[in-house]
């Protein structure tokens, strides 16, 4: 007889917890092919709070938020929204639970008015005709409620980025959103704009909106948020209280992984500097970049996304033009105006986006391997010697252990790792002795990763100078002799040998914005 009340009280307790939390995630999992993007994520977000989600690049923050907003479908685990268990298979279902997400890149139409943007999904309110007056009036109402001082008929493109972001927020809230996800919203904002945004976010919280806030800027997290969840390698590490924890606590829980035997032993590079960048500046982002790479050396470029790592590669390869500064190779100043110049001067690039920039997907593997150096295939008067081409392709197939059916198959038929090997083979077929690799193992499974590391090592033994951009700290630490850490378009520091630890790199990589 006495058991029943206990049972009831337990149920009541559970009910209270569910009410208190707006979002509860238990053991959420997501796989992409062989990659376990989310292994086991637990997340509890209190109703009407601002909750920070932090972690390294690739830790799974964005994937998790895409699961929550219905863009990805979870493979396992449980998600509860306001006490109700959900399983989203489309973004629409997530929207029906009043969840709104604001991505890093704004998804607005610049040539439409603010009001038109806010009501874009249903401009005619069910009808076919648009009443400019009506949407302007409703938009004004929505903006006023939020305290945003924006005129609804303004062309969106005429607003500053911060105000555009507010329009994006208003757009979400116009759909009665009560959970708002912001994915690095301040990456594109100035300090003043950030203050304005923060005020608005606090006001929203006070109105009962639950906010998940993803950011790399720890100072912001301390200023703004009520709770912090750290995730790493697709797993929840810890939940911290910003009132009591320190910056160091966060960094320690973001990093500190087991070092595994994925990497070959490092060789000692020569002292001869091959590539040198002196005081390089670009119009957009890069400031006073000074780096060098020696013969037989692997140098890393670490930093968070948007820090300017790829931009350095683009300058070295002649895709972006430099505003000032010098690029030297073997002591000679280079004038690189386009990729063709760079290749002539012996610089190769394995670009970050394999599908768009690295491989001609629809063409045969053979053609992809010989693309950069068709002269080598014995062409007098531009005539291709097919036999020689086949021989070269087969040589690389053996040397790099490329797993393929036939060299005549399109490169799209290969796995990511083997595609990447073909892209690398393309450069080994040229006279390049400087190779820049931008995220060389992105979307590559562990086995192929290790093979690619061995190929890179083999190249250093042949005297190549190698610059690697990677968001995986393990990769930088395991592979590089030296690394430059970038932050906000500048070189924040240089780490050599044992100083290359995840903690040191993260400390330098996180943007230092003066607290106001």
């Amino acid at each position, binding site marked *: 007889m006495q058991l029943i009340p206990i049972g009831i009280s337990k149920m009541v307790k559970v009910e209270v917890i569910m009410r208190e939390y707006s979002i509860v995630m238990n053991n959420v999992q997501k796989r992409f092919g062989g990659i376990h993007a989310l292994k086991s994520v637990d997340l509890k977000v209190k109703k009407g709070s601002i909750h920070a989600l932090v972690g390294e690049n690739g830790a799974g923050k964005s994937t998790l938020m895409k699961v929550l907003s219905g863009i990805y479908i979870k493979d396992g685990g449980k998600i509860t929204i306001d006490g109700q268990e959900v399983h989203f298979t489309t973004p629409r279902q997530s929207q029906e639970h009043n969840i709104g997400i604001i991505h890093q890149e704004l998804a607005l139409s610049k040539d439409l008015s603010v009001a038109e943007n806010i009501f874009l999904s249903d401009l005619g309110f069910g009808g076919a005709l648009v009443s400019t007056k009506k949407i302007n009036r409703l938009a004004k109402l929505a903006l006023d409620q939020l305290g945003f001082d924006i005129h609804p008929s303004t062309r969106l493109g005429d607003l500053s980025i911060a105000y555009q972001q507010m329009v994006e927020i208003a757009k979400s809230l116009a759909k009665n959103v009560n959970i708002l996800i912001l994915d690095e919203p301040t990456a594109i904002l100035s300090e003043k704009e950030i203050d304005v945004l923060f005020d608005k976010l606090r006001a929203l919280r006070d109105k009962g909106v639950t906010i998940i806030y993803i950011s790399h800027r720890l100072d912001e997290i301390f200023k703004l948020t009520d709770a912090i969840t750290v995730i790493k390698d697709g797993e929840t590490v810890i939940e911290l209280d910003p009132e009591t924890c320190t910056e160091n606590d966060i960094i320690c829980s973001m990093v500190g992984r087991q070092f595994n035997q994925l990497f070959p032993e490092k060789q000692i590079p020569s002292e001869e500097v091959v590539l040198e960048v002196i005081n390089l500046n670009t119009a957009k982002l890069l400031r006073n970049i000074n780096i060098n790479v020696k013969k037989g050396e692997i140098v890393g470029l670490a930093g968070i996304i948007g820090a300017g790592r790829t931009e350095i590669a683009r300058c070295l390869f002649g*895709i972006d033009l430099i505003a000032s500064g010098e690029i030297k190779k073997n002591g000679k100043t280079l004038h690189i105006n386009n990729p063709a110049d760079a290749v002539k001067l012996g610089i190769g690039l394995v670009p970050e986006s394999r599908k768009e920039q690295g491989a001609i997907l629809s063409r045969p593997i053979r053609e992809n391997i010989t693309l950069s150096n068709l002269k080598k295939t014995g*062409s007098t008067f531009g005539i291709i010697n097919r036999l020689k081409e086949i021989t070269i392709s087969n040589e690389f197939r053996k040397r790099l252990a490329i797993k393929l059916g036939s060299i005549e198959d399109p490169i799209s038929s290969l796995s990511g790792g083997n595609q990447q090997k073909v892209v690398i083979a393309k450069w080994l077929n040229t006279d390049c002795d400087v190779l820049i690799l931008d995220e060389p193992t992105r979307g590559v499974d562990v086995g192929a990763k290790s093979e690619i590391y061995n190929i890179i090592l083999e190249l250093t033994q042949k005297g190549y100078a190698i610059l690697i951009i990677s968001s995986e700290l393990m990769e930088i630490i395991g592979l590089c002799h030296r690394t430059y850490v970038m932050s906000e378009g500048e070189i924040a520091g240089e780490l050599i040998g044992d100083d290359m630890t995840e903690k040191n790199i993260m400390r330098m990589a996180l943007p230092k914005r003066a607290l106001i």
Partner: protein
Amino acid sequence: MNSIVTEQKITNNNFSIKNTLNLLAEHSTIVVFLTMMFAAYFLSDKFYSVANITNVLRQSVPLGLVSLGMLYVILTGGIDLSVGSIMALVSVVVALVIPEYGVFFAVCSAVIVATLMGSCAGGLVAYFKIAPFIATLAMMTIARGLALIVSKGQPIFVDDVAFVDFGTGYFMGLPLPVYVFLFFSILAHFIYKKTTFGRLVISIGSNETATRFAGIPVERYKFAVYALSGMACGVAGVIAATRTGVGSPVLGLSFELDAIAAVVVGGASLAGGRGTVFKTIIGVLILSVISNLMNLMNISGYLQQIVKGVIIILAVVLESLKTKQ
């Protein structure tokens, strides 16, 4: 590995039907062409006569030449609208120069003028980054305007016997212009298959960014295909003038559409990277044979246009089925 095995099983089960369909879709251009040639036998008793066949071949030469140039432009993902106007300009130039300096010099200068016009379009596209549609649209009206000015708006008659004889003459039973077309077809095929130029043109059309990132001076190749297209128009314009004996400023009106249609019917993708010389020639023959057949059947010109449109849609739909598979 598992999925590959199951896929193979599935294809084995539907062996006969699916493979036949695949084969048909793969060679849809040829299927359409053969069907048409077969139907022609029943549609007109005059079609399979030596006189008619040679006539069809002779008539297809200018379109064929222009389509070869167009194929290269389309392979890079571009388009050339200026072809018909350049042909007109060339025919006028050649007719005007012959009485002054003789046939050889006239032909050379006409082809050079055409190549220059093509180069202008190429320069605009490659180095000034103007959309091919716009750049060649501008060149189209400029070339037409030049042709009208140079000719004062009147057709110019050529009375050089050798010149006109070439257009109407035969060698071993085939019209002389057909040999010119054969020569350029083989050349175009050779460039397509065997040279770095052909390889890189396809590569640019397949993925321009990746080709640029491979260190290829993409601009140079884009420029070159428009120059080549211009040159092809030059030769086509001269041939057209030899056939009629007239240099006409209104020659080749809406010819660009026929050439684009021939290339597309030949299975090329307007997005670039896909298309072959052989199938383009088939595409040209399909268009020529349709016109010829309908003329023989006394079908009105108005109706002809509709039928042509339907055939183009049919060929392209077949092609898109293939892409889906």
